[in-house]
């Protein structure tokens, strides 16, 4: 027990000095298990390749420029779709959150369309827009929109009425109250909406790329299935997981630390 505790203490000190270790070490047992199962040839090697084969395929696909190109395509689609989804979703969420009449009119409609789901739109989108960027962008915007709208509206309604009153009695117009009070007050919830929206959007994008498929990580994986290359399918899966981890820890978490957590609106 004491030995384990000492080891954990050492690990804690190490990660405090080199935070990167914290994101690598937890994956060592996972990769080791994977390697062990692959080496033991529990399944035929072609169906269940080991980490080394996947790493080799990673190097070769990067070298050929396929992986960087596809990654760029996927990320660009996600970025454009997410930006558009937020640009639509945040104002709509503020409107629904602040205005009882807008809420009464829009809420049932929002719930209705939320239930239809992103992929369920693909059949009709393929007829309307074909196998195009428009189809994929629509799916992502649609997916991102609802978590952002619903969470923004929730956040807006959770801003205490005293803060509205304080701002008004200090001379703020209604428009300034929205900018100075409502939006920052709702920011933790908007971030939750963005986090959910990005997560769903990322999944929807992969699904759309598999079906619409001309390029992108989803296309890479589905194309690999056609060629029977399990290595590349596994590579695609790993890239998906890694990318999400990077977006979360390099983009979302720092924003949250600098805003809601700093302000004491959410507990660390």
């Amino acid at each position, binding site marked *: 027990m004491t030995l384990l505790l000492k080891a954990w203490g050492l690990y804690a000190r190490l990660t405090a000095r080199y935070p990167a270790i914290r994101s690598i070490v937890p994956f060592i047992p996972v990769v080791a298990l994977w390697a062990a199962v692959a080496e033991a040839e529990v399944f035929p090697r072609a169906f269940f390749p080991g980490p080394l084969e996947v790493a080799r395929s990673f190097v070769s696909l990067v070298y050929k420029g396929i992986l960087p190109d596809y990654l760029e395509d996927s990320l660009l689609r996600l970025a454009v779709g997410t930006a558009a989804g937020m640009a639509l979703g945040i104002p709509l969420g503020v409107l629904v959150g602040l205005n009882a009449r807008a809420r009464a009119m829009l809420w049932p409609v929002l719930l209705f369309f939320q239930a239809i789901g992103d992929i369920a739109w693909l059949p009709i989108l393929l007829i309307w827009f074909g196998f195009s960027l428009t189809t994929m962008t629509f799916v992502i915007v649609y997916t991102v929109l609802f978590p952002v709208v619903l969470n923004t509206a929730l956040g807006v309604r959770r801003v*205490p009425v*005293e*803060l509205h*009153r*304080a*701002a*008004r*009695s*200090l*001379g*703020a*117009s209604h428009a*300034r109250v929205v900018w*100075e*009070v409502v939006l*920052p*007050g709702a*920011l933790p919830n908007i971030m939750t909406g963005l986090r959910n929206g990005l997560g769903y959007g990322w999944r929807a994008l992969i699904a759309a790329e598999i079906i619409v498929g001309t390029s992108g990580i989803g296309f890479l994986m589905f194309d690999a299935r056609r060629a029977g290359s399990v290595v590349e399918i596994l590579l695609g899966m790993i890239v998906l997981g890694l990318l999400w981890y990077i977006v979360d820890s390099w983009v979302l978490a720092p924003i949250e630390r600098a*805003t809601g957590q*700093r*302000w*004491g*609106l959410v507990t660390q």
Partner: protein
Amino acid sequence: MKNLTLRELSKTYFDPYAGAHLTAVHDVSLTVQQGEFVSIVGPSGCGKTTLLNMIAGFIPVSGGEILLDGRAVKGPGPERGVVFQSFALFPWKTVLENVAFGPKMRGLPRPECESVAREYLALAGLAHAADRYPNELSGGMQQRVGVVRALANNPDVLLMDEPFASVDAQTRMTLQEELTRIWQERRPTIIFITHDVGEAVFLADRVVVLSKGRVLKELGVALPRPRAWDLVIEDSAYKAVSAEVLHLVRSA
């Protein structure tokens, strides 16, 4: 003179549970002179917060009118500053940005907003906390910020709604003494709502006792200023007025 006049002010609510209209404030008439410090004291449910919310313009009046400098007030406005029981500081703004908020909304240029805010922070002994966020301060310090944020806007009337009710007893005494000091320095008109009889008498020139939405009695407080608790607590005039107000509040 920018007097505040309440003329037969009343507020009626519809209570959906009782299925009837309830009168929270009933024909209250009151005149507050410029520079005067008035406490409104009463038991909970006497309508004192409703009264303040009407003067602040947060809720509409059901009858009567509120005149400031002879003109009827409508909705919230910067000429009536408010200090809240819950402090109501903006958590995403630093102490300095909170205090500079009013001047910023008035459209003052940025350096001027900042210098006004720093001046008022110094007045409350908060200069060192300018760059901190409200959640990093104690309750007493947060409410000091709340008071100077309202004052920095240079309002005609300062409306204070049980501002010291949620800080500890020692801090409350300090804040009360600081408030009387700041009031003597700047002479804003103050309407101070409280359920604490001692606080009402200690702070004000005049105490208005409110009961069941009506003015029960008005009493003048002729205590010398500056006021400090260690002296006031032994003062016979303080004791006499407090005893009378307490009697009125408890019999209400």
